[in-house]
């Protein structure tokens, strides 16, 4: 696995307002960086810029690296980043298994089927393969969405408030499931809820960087025990 590195990122709105100036950070594999800030502070814009889906009206300068590879100018589909949004966006015209297979890359039919089954088993929703997303509970949907992202074999994980639509009891379970599932990936979490941040994560408050920041925040993995 490789580190996710953002260097010297500046985002500016069409009216000239800076969302961030010269922001830099590096997330090692297995580490989590929580990006915090008030609504409209630019957290989601930073995440969109990393994935390559930033609104073209926002001007952006900076570089993003996965290990030694500069992926700044690559098309979205070639960046190998996993993205989870507030809404799960399970495709309603596909069953759970089809959604998961849609995430898989390569493999024979039998291999793909086996991978889907084992991932569903690991998530505790083994019997849901042929169900359609509309029939799942919020927690089941969240798990399928995360599994689909992970099955696409991403090199880093980007989470944009993925727990905010879940009820309080479910949140803790899904958070735990997420951090265990993504244990080997560099993970960037955008949230405004401090409870979403795992204990081993580092936090970067966006308001601290609106003025200027030249320091690189390196986030290293947490080693238990």
């Amino acid at each position, binding site marked *: 696995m490789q580190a996710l590195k953002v260097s010297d990122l500046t985002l500016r709105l069409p009216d000239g307002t800076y969302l961030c100036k010269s922001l830099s950070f590096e997330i090692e594999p297995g580490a989590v960086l929580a990006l915090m800030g008030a609504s409209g502070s630019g957290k989601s814009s930073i995440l969109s810029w990393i994935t390559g889906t930033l609104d073209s009206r926002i001007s952006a300068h900076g570089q993003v690296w996965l290990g030694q590879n500069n992926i700044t100018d690559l098309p979205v589909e070639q960046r190998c980043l*996993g993205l989870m949004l507030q809404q799960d966006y399970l495709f309603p015209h596909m069953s759970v298994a089809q959604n998961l297979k849609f995430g898989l890359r*390569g493999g024979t039919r039998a291999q*793909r089927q086996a991978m889907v089954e084992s991932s569903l088993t690991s998530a505790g929703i083994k019997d849901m393969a042929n169900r359609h997303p509309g029939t799942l509970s919020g927690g089941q949907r969240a798990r399928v969405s995360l599994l689909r992202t992970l099955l696409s074999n991403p090199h880093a994980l980007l989470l944009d408030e993925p727990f905010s639509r879940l009820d309080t009891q479910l949140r803790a379970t899904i958070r735990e499931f997420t951090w265990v599932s993504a244990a080997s990936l560099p993970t960037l979490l955008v949230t405004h809820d401090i409870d979403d941040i795992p204990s081993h994560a580092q936090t970067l408050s966006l308001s601290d960087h609106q003025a200027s920041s030249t320091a690189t925040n390196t986030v290293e993995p947490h080693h238990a025990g």
Partner: protein
Amino acid sequence: MTRFIGYSIACLFGLPLLVGLAGSILPAVGLMPQLAPGNGLLQLFQDPRFWPSILLSIKTGLTATLLVLFVTVLTLVCAHGTRLWGWLMGFMPPLLAVPHAAMAVGLVFLISPSGWLVRLTSTVVPGLDRPPTAWVVPDSGGWSLILGLVIKEAPFLLLAAAAQLATINVDSSLKIGRTLGYSPARCWSRLVLPQLYSRIRLTLFIILAFNLSVVDMAVLLGPGNPPTFSVFLLSLVNDPGSRAAASAGAVLLAAGVLLVIGTVLVLEVLVAWVAGRRRESGHRGKALNAFRRLGQVLIASLLALSVTSMVMLLVWSVARRWRFPDALPSQWTGDNWLSRSELLLNPLLCTLTFALFVVVVTTASAIAWLESERFNKVPKLDWLWYIPLLIPQVTLLFGWQALALLIRADGQWLTVAYAHWVYTLPYVVLILAVAWREFDPGWNNAAAVLGACYWRILFRIRLPLLIKPVSQAAAVALAVSVAQYLPTLLLGAGRHQTLAIELVTSFGGVDRRVIATLAALQSLLPLVAFIAALGLPKLIFPTTHQSNASA
């Protein structure tokens, strides 16, 4: 009372559909010998034009519909999210409002051997001082008709698709699909289009039914020998000896349309199965930027073709002298508009009389229906409104004409206006239904607790707040009425010379400048209506719009 009004509207709308079908089926099977003597089917099969015209209709109708679908998908995949998309969304509504006959005339002025494209080419190709003889418009293969149908119907499907994009979270689907590693085209084909298709299927079927049975465009752009099947039937219906054959053909046409729709439904299952298998393969595809740019060029060319066709009408309508191969008229004049008022004024007044009547009655009846529906006095009957759009006009109108002849109602102004109403109401109800059903009932409750009665709430609260969709629906009603050719022709018994009738009957035998002026005038009416629909609400209820804007 509300229930009575609601059911009256449904009956007034539904009964003509039954009468139309019965009026075509009964003569076809020999049950109306006094009106249609003989064996209709036998007469039809013995006519040498039967099979060639059927084959031509299948070719033009199916090819045009497939191309409309292809252009729509191509536009979505290649243009969505680009600047071209913004242009398209700006140009599509006015292009959609242009009557079919006027668009067809403009296209002839553009692509015929003496048309503007050849004239423009002659400025760079030396020696092209006479119109080429390599092709003619209309051509015997029906390709001019196919092109006309594509540029007229593609905006309809594209706007229907664009309206549905927001309901399927297209941007998010594309974003998720691309972060999973899929190329943009694969995201469209595997994520967006399968969801979108079911939402635009009915619109596609309406286009399919129209393309297979169109008359006015086929008269203007289609070949004459053999003509398309519906034009062939039209030539039969005017001959009393062939009326049974015409009715049999009209029934066959409706059956054919249903058969094709059924076939498409079966093909859908097959395509969905194949697409499902391919979707599970996990193949990401490649970003084909060159293909995307090529698609954009093709779409822009079709848009330019439509817009230039309309410009041609305006240019010809103010031309005094325009010799081949000049790219522009050498002399200009306003006389085509001003000194031919006797030619333009009567059709204009006739068209406006029908259109204004239809606007008022259709809008009022659509509102009355939706109000009945709101109070649960009548069930939702959305399927009912689609019936006249899915059954070929020829089929229903032959039946209506038979009945009108029997009760001596043919040629009556009210008979024609009634037919216009039937063909306009579906559009108005379906447009208003969205706004009506989504209207926040809290506004009614707020007014009711202040002591307002039903009528006061309707006229002081609901209509002012819904004035925008009501105005747009009224403009659509006017556009649909202005474009009606076949109902006016068959039920009007030649007594009502609307612009549509005058344009189609004069085409080919009258000066191009007169034809262009008629077509331009016919196109201007719906455009004026749409401009009025944008401006009038602000004039009538300025405070509503100020408060909406500030909200």
